[in-house]
């Protein structure tokens, strides 16, 4: 299963959500939707209307920046980054 890494801004919002976990899914959106099943409300913290990734949320799969339709392989590493913004 893909190895998903989440930002530190996200984990305090959901009880028991770890920084790193294995998640089923063939695309980024599928993996996020799988997380949503266990932590309701999580999708809305990463995905805006459209659906589209929120403007300052970046996702990398195996070090390549992708969008919600980015493909995941069983051994992929998916990094969700809260990009530097604000102040």
């Amino acid at each position, binding site marked *: 299963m893909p190895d998903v890494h989440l930002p530190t801004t996200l984990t305090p919002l959901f009880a028991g959500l770890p920084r790193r976990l294995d998640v089923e899914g063939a695309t980024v959106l599928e993996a996020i939707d799988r997380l949503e099943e266990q932590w309701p*409300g999580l999708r*809305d913290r990463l995905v805006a*209307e459209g659906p589209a990734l929120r403007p300052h949320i970046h996702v990398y799969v195996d070090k390549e920046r992708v969008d919600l339709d980015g493909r995941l392989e069983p051994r992929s590493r998916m990094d969700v980054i809260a990009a530097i913004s604000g102040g």
Partner: protein
Amino acid sequence: MARTLVLVGTRKGAFVLESDGDRRDWALRGPYCEGWPVYHAIWDSGSGTIYAAAASEWHGSAIWRSGDLGESWEMSSEGLSYGDDEGRKVSKVSTLATAGSRLLVGVEAPGIFESRDGGETFSLVSTLSGQPGSEAWDDPANQPPGHLGISGFVTDGGDAERFFAVVQGVGAFETTDGGSSWTPRNRGLRRDWPAEHEEVGFCVHKLVRSPSDGQRMYQQNHVGMHRSDDEGRSWHEITEGLPSDFGFAAAAHPHDRESFYVIPLDAGHGRIMPEGKATVWRTSDAGSSWRPLRQGLPQEGAHLGVLRQGMAIDSYETPGLYFGTSTGQVFASPDEGETWTMIADYLPAISSVDVAMVD
């Protein structure tokens, strides 16, 4: 013993200042809401809940709630969306109010959502579509700085179906059917710019109603202080005697329909208190005259700004006034504004102040 809580929304989370009924000694706790920018934190006396409208740069908008006076918090945005097909986006939750058991949420792009289950889920009430010019409200080029969308509510304590909503840079609107239909309530307001529509195109910064007389309303406008004696159907200007016609914050005295407080600001880019003197102004005759309240407030080098949700008043027999600044100070007066004390400093920039009286 009575507890008095001042709820402070800041750019880095919500804070709570707590005192007793005397309102002399205060203790600060926070930050709450994981440091999200909080645009408006309010007290719902009906349910004993604190609600905070917050919008994270990273994680979007949500309403935080606490049922234990701020000790623990939950957050939800379920239903707080225009959906994937509309093209409109909720960029920010700007303001909150309660109307009966409903929690009203004002958002940008301009729209009103409600929660009927205490902030767990939300649904769209209205975008005020059909009002003159509303088709252009979503265009960022047409929006005033701040991009607040719906910037304030005034609710009717006795009738949950009847309330006012302010669209930033457009004007005030009233509904009497819970949000299904709307009527502009801007007649008589000053407007120093050309506009296409007679009834809309006004810049209402803060709208308040006298708790002791629902017909009596006041507003701090972009251009002038105004009063209404007929529940917003007509307005006339009462700026004379104030040092500026510009400001954001305003509060109505809970027991005296003639008394009202404002914080005038320089109208240019600065938008800070004139001459570096922190001052709240009070009228006790419905705007015929104004008196500065300065005792205890800094009178030298105090270049303070206060935003539209930045002042609150409690409803003790002798009401207390509170305001928070964009440089992180909170000032409080336990005696209707006659004397003041700084009760917090070094907070993040303050967006909102509300007050709760708890038995």
